[in-house]
């Protein structure tokens, strides 16, 4: 059997074990840790979306905080204005609105690339940020909006444990959908795009379709994550969607490792675990984040996830070599 199949069985078992452990979390930990795990799940979704764009498709965006905001504001506005608004619909609306706008933003990737594309996304992010701040009638302006707990019919998820399972399920769904996407033709098209646009075109891959799709799907993920974020922290305002947040999103994928699944998870954990370690030192958070980012880019260009991945593969290869004889 080939290498992928060879590694598959142990991986599946590992995932199941980890999955079982995660489901038991609320039983072992108090409310606060449950909240932490929930936020990490949100960032994992964000990391997945960012990774789809930057890691797999090779396009860097410093404006994705805007989609986080679109998803969050959609949820906040709908849940507050229309009592009893079902949460799946709110999340989907936030997600698809993000996807639509992301799709449009993707067209700009046809005209620019690399650093110039990154600058264009910065501009987009800043514009959306201004809209969040200035369109007070809709968004509550600089003061923001509060968010009603997720509702469907007569059920409301109010406790942090209920929120946790709710978010966990959605994270799992998106995660497996995403894994399928990556191994599908579309996923391969993304990777081809990253490696060489010219070669990709010669394989019959439409640049227009692929680039806009990459933007749309990554925006979808980040938008849904934004909606979950709104439900989780119960109050949003434009500061939650500033350029600094957008930079943190990029930090997640760079530190975690572009283009690796484990990278997304590691990045999300680090980005959230770091501030927790520094509780009481929150005003050093930015420096630590910057230093970590700097260190990783200069010395570990594959990110922590990538380096671990390589190390794990090498370890696995040396172990399996011995067992072959």
């Amino acid at each position, binding site marked *: 059997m080939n290498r992928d199949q060879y590694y598959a069985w142990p991986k599946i078992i590992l995932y199941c074990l980890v999955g079982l452990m995660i489901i038991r979390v609320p039983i072992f930990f108090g409310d606060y840790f449950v909240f932490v795990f929930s936020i990490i799940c949100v960032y994992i979704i964000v990391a997945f979306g960012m990774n789809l764009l930057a890691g797999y498709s090779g396009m860097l965006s410093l404006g994705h905080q805007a989609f986080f905001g679109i998803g969050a504001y959609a949820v906040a506005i709908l849940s507050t204005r229309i009592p009893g608004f079902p949460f799946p619909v709110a999340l989907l609306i936030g997600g698809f609105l993000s996807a639509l706008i992301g799709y449009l933003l993707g067209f700009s990737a046809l*005209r*620019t690339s690399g*650093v110039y594309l990154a600058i*264009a996304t910065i*501009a987009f992010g800043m514009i959306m940020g201004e809209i969040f701040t200035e369109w007070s009638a809709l968004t509550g302006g600089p003061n923001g909006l509060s968010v009603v707990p997720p509702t469907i019919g007569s059920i409301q998820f109010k406790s942090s444990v209920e929120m946790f399972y709710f978010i966990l399920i959605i994270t799992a769904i998106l995660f497996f959908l995403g894994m399928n996407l990556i191994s599908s033709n579309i996923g391969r098209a993304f990777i081809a795009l990253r490696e060489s646009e010219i070669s990709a075109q010669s394989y019959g891959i439409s640049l227009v379709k692929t680039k806009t799709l990459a933007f749309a799907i990554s925006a979808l993920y980040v938008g849904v994550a934004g909606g979950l974020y709104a439900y989780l922290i119960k109050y949003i305002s434009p500061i939650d969607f500033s350029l600094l947040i957008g930079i943190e999103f990029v930090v997640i994928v*760079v530190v975690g490792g572009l283009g690796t699944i484990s990278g997304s998870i590691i990045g999300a954990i680090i980005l959230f675990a770091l501030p927790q370690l520094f509780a009481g030192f929150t005003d050093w958070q*930015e420096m630590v984040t*910057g230093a970590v980012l*700097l260190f990783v880019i200069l010395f570990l260009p594959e990110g922590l996830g990538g380096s671990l991945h390589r190390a794990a593969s090498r370890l696995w290869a040396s172990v399996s070599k011995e067992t072959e004889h």
Partner: protein
Amino acid sequence: MEFLTEIAQQIIFGAVIGCVYALVAICFVLIYKATDIINFAQGEMVVFSTFISYSLVVTYHLPYWQVFIISFTISWFMGMLIESTVFRRLIGAPHLNALMVSVAVGMIIRNATGHIWTFDDLRLPPPFSDKVFQLPLGLVVSPLFIGILSVAIAVMVVLFIFLNKTKAGLSIRATSQNVNAARLMGVPVSRVFSISWGLSAGIGSIAGILIAPLLILNVGMFIVILKALVAAVLGGFGSLPGAILGGILLGVLENLVGTYLPNWVKHILVWAILLIVIIVMPQGLLGVRKQKRV
């Protein structure tokens, strides 16, 4: 008639701010021309330099002409230090790496600035008197405006002379056009990179002193400086005259829009310009995409 005076007034005010944008835009372009890197830490470096100036003025009570010189010198060395420790390693690496590194460096500098001084707002006393007086035709100016304009123009003139009439300046221009040929001519290319960063940081420190009195001095000011990036893109990245034109144009436009249209238009304007220029006209008004060979 009054309406014309009003517009002229706003244009003058916009041009004054625009000159400062132009100076910072020049900083971006200098580094870009020399090393192909867009320095996203530029804003934070300018703010850091301005805090140094604040200390020199408010804590040590030095006269402003000394403050300009000392701040310039310290910033020059800071720029060289950043280049040699961080960016020298990135030569030959993908450009996005350099982008992210400069963002990271910016974060570190911004946080350090807050810790060394404060995260609160400060007020930098203006280098020139900001008393206003009337000119004929009803225009209002102040020594501050004239001072800002004069210093900015002086810097641009000195820079022009340095780049075009001196051997060192010639070697910088040559290196930015063709690194391999410059090496063949015996130019110590790494020294050219160092000087470009030093120069950029130094000019940035002057720009900071000029703009801080017009705004509030605080750690978040770097966003304002980011507008200079828009100016550089507008003028045409890689073109120094373009940076100047872009800066002044941006300043005037921003001010006119801010005066006659609702505030939110002014806030969105800068970024809308950036987005449109990058997508529709990436070479900007005066720029040519960098040529590498002949």
